[in-house]
């Protein structure tokens, strides 16, 4: 690990508020305990340690949530967040939950939580909080997908689940809005969720489902070579090259390396995206995230293939800045997301 532990702790402590530092360091510590050198994962301990919240059909700050099984035979769970339906009843009826939140066009955000493909769930407290915020921000209906995680489920399970959720949502009549009864969908995700959003968007483009926009927060990409940012920032701000390698090994197929197209969509093995009706992207990169070179390469790759990209580079931000509403990064990025959605929902 580059740099001594003490130096790294001091550096990262100067970059974020103290409670953020505690939160992210706690995750780092816990996650270190869960990854085993032989590639297995202590799933039971992971579930024990993860702080979860139940769905809640009682409005809290104007937002309600409920869990849905997408298809009875499939076990794909998703948590739906939406503005509280206007009803005289104190608690919305089941029928109310499925009323469109407005007659005017509203966005549907299909959200893929982060966790490097292995951690967290749609009912993890950190993501419940974030999804609620998206609803408040954009008047959106958010579908947070509880995709299957590695190492138990490797590529392409997460993408398959993301695709299943998108297809399910596209067929729900209450998620269509506006005079043209259109399904105005955005794909969003942080870390591995951002990676999933990209790959589901590719499938959507190939299959003729129109996506209004992609929102990628610190998306997880990589490749075989060690980029400059990886070497420079290794171990300095909560993340190490070593743990990134572990997670890729856990997700990618047996024997694959990090130039696999799932990990490196603009690498030597990737299919071209030129000519595909791929959606517009809002890509948020944190300047203290060691994989930023891959994220910037991703943005470049999209542009070169002729697709619209808005890149937001927060120089002093670390991973996880969007988990706590206590920095400029948080509020300004939320603003960017809101503008992007409002602009492209028409």
């Amino acid at each position, binding site marked *: 690990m580059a740099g001594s532990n003490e130096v790294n702790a001091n550096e990262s402590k100067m970059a974020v508020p103290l409670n953020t530092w505690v939160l992210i*360091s706690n995750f780092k510590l816990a996650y270190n305990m869960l990854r085993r050198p032989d590639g297995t994962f202590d799933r039971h301990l992971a579930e024990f340690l993860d702080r979860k919240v139940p769905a809640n059909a009682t409005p809290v700050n104007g937002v309600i949530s409920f869990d849905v099984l997408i298809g009875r035979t499939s076990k794909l769970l998703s948590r739906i967040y939406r503005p509280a339906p206007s009803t005289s009843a104190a608690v919305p009826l089941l029928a109310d939950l499925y009323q469109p939140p407005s007659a005017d066009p509203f966005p549907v955000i299909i959200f893929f939580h982060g966790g490097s493909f292995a951690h967290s769930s749609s009912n993890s407290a950190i993501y419940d909080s974030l999804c609620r915020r998206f609803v408040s921000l954009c008047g959106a209906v958010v579908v947070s997908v509880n995709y299957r995680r590695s190492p138990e489920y490797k590529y392409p399970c997460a993408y398959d689940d993301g695709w299943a959720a998108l297809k399910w949502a596209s067929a729900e009549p209450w998620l269509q809005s506006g005079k043209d009864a259109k399904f105005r969908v955005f794909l969003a995700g942080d870390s591995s969720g951002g990676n999933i959003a990209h790959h589901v968007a590719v499938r959507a483009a190939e299959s003729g489902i129109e996506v209004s926009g992609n929102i990628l927060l610190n998306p997880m990409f990589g490749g075989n070579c060690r980029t400059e940012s990886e070497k420079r920032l290794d171990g300095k701000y909560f993340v190490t090259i070593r743990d990134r390698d572990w997670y890729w090994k856990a997700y990618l197929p047996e024997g694959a390396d990090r130039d696999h197209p799932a990990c490196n969509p603009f690498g030597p093995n990737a299919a071209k995206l030129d000519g595909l009706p791929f959606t517009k992207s809002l890509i948020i990169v944190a300047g203290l995230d060691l994989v930023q070179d891959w994220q910037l390469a991703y943005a470049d790759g999209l542009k070169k293939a002729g697709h619209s990209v808005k890149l937001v580079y927060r120089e002093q931000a670390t991973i996880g800045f969007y988990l706590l509403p206590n920095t400029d990064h948080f509020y300004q990025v939320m603003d960017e997301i809101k503008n992007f959605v409002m602009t492209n929902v028409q």
Partner: protein
Amino acid sequence: MKREHQETGAGGGSGYHVATAADMAGAKGKMTAASSMGMEDDDCGVDELLAALGYKVRSSDMADVAQKLEQLEMAMASTAAAASDDASVLPQIASDTVHYDPSHLAAWLDSMLSELNAPPPPLPPPPPVAAAVHQHHHQRFDVSTASAVSEPPAITTVAPLRPSDAYGFKPVPPPAAASGGRVVYGLDPQSEMIVSPRDQKRKRTCSPSSSSSWGAEAGRARGSRTEGASSAKPAAALPVVVVDTQETGIRLVHALMACAEAVQQENLKAADALVKHISVLAASQDGPMRKVAGYFAEAIARRIYRRRPLSQVDRALDSPALEDLLHLHFYESCPYLKFAHFTANQAILEAFSGCRRVHVIDFGMRQGLQWPALLQALALRPGGPPSLRLTGIGPPQSDHSDALQQVGWKLDMLAKTIGVDFRYRGFVASSLADLESRMLLERDGSEGDRDDAGEEEAVAVNSVMELHRLLARTGALEKVLRMVLAVRPRIVTVVEEEANHNGGTFLDRFTEALHYYSSMFDSLEGGGGQAAAAGEEEQQQKHRAMAEAYLGRQICNVVACEGAERTERHETLGQWRVRMARAGFEPAHLGSNAFKQASMLLALYAGGDGFRVEETDGCLTLGWHTRPLIATSAWRVSAASAH
């Protein structure tokens, strides 16, 4: 970027948060989010932002917690560096540690730091009888292994046994004569309910000594607000898991809600019409929703018509033996009771660690399904089993059979087989509130020279779905908890349905119950374990049908009854925490080892992927998908109450 930001409403429209009237209660909303994470009023001074994410850290402790995180990382990195070259993966010793209550970061970090700094202890010496000081409770229950491979800790609980295996023969079915030949099981749930829950209370007047007190109590309690109602809080969370998004399913729920609303408004004519409409809708519905709707509609009908007087047949259909039979099928058909027994036993085992004489008091003995596993685990205990005394409490039997004694004999035989010194005593009581502590503590004279004169007895009190019944009578719970305090238990294990079926208005209760039992019924259907042979499949179906009838009786009680008759007064963990704290108890946290083993057993027994074990604030819950349905908690006498 290190500035603390206030969340301000951007005028109009959606800014950083929705500026609606709801936000006048915004602070309350935040507290609701926090309280749904299980925070109580005494958590003042905690960092609000972290609390919303499930972590309780006092703002004043933040720097200290940060330091501990650093220390821990350095300690682990240096140990790892010594062991292997992979510094990013912590040594096994950390992952084999038993973890408790991850929400309390400071305490969690402390326990891990002390784990790393001290060598793993041998089997802990018998802890002092007096209640332990609060911050040491982690160490007391901490059983770590130093092995490189992740193994379950030294204290283990054997997997719950099938009742027939445990006893070597099938349990005794209820005598047919007592039911007058008119026992209708739930194969056709639309047909006559087996027994009116109203009758359940009546039967408890069978034993002459209690009939007068019950009659008077029932009369007095009816119509009066019982102690059960929870105090005013921010709006309770309503977890909803939607499985059936069929069009008719939604209409059915809608009709049920409308019906309940009509009942609340005392518009009985409309309610009646809706009940009939529900039956029509339900008939065209498939799966668990049909059955759930059937039971709820039936219950509303009973409420509307208030069936009186109770017929002879109704009374005959109601017997504890029948109740026990349904309970047994419920036990077989789904993992909830197995989970309850397993997690409670785990806590009891840990509390009894190092004790040579132990006494378990079971508030609801029934067929004693919980105890064979505990006996086995005690028999296998390193250092040998303690002498175990078991006190079982059960209701009077209408047919005067002595089920309570019979269970004791069976357990005694098992104990002899596996070499555990065992004594059993049954107490018949119509209500737990009729018991006195001295009755439970006094020993019969037959002890003789088996009595280790010097050593005190370690007591565990176990209550699986019994405490909520006491809420039907003012003061009953408090009396029972005072009695529990008086027996000076080392551990009190409490398992309860995780739902609020006891607060607010009828409509609130109805709504809660509808969601709760929908999830329950769904889990019965979806979670059936792999039945290999055709015969097993049929057996599973029979279990399920009876289990549904068992739940149907609860539904009927929640919806159709009031006052002292409404005994299914389920409350949530949050509510029980308040009650237990008021009564002088403090939490004894269940840890990651119990969690892991429960999860692993679940995979064996339940088969279906939908069951989830979760940890909240030191308690374990088992639920269907994301909806917790049953919660196990453990308690100790608090330091303050000990004196």
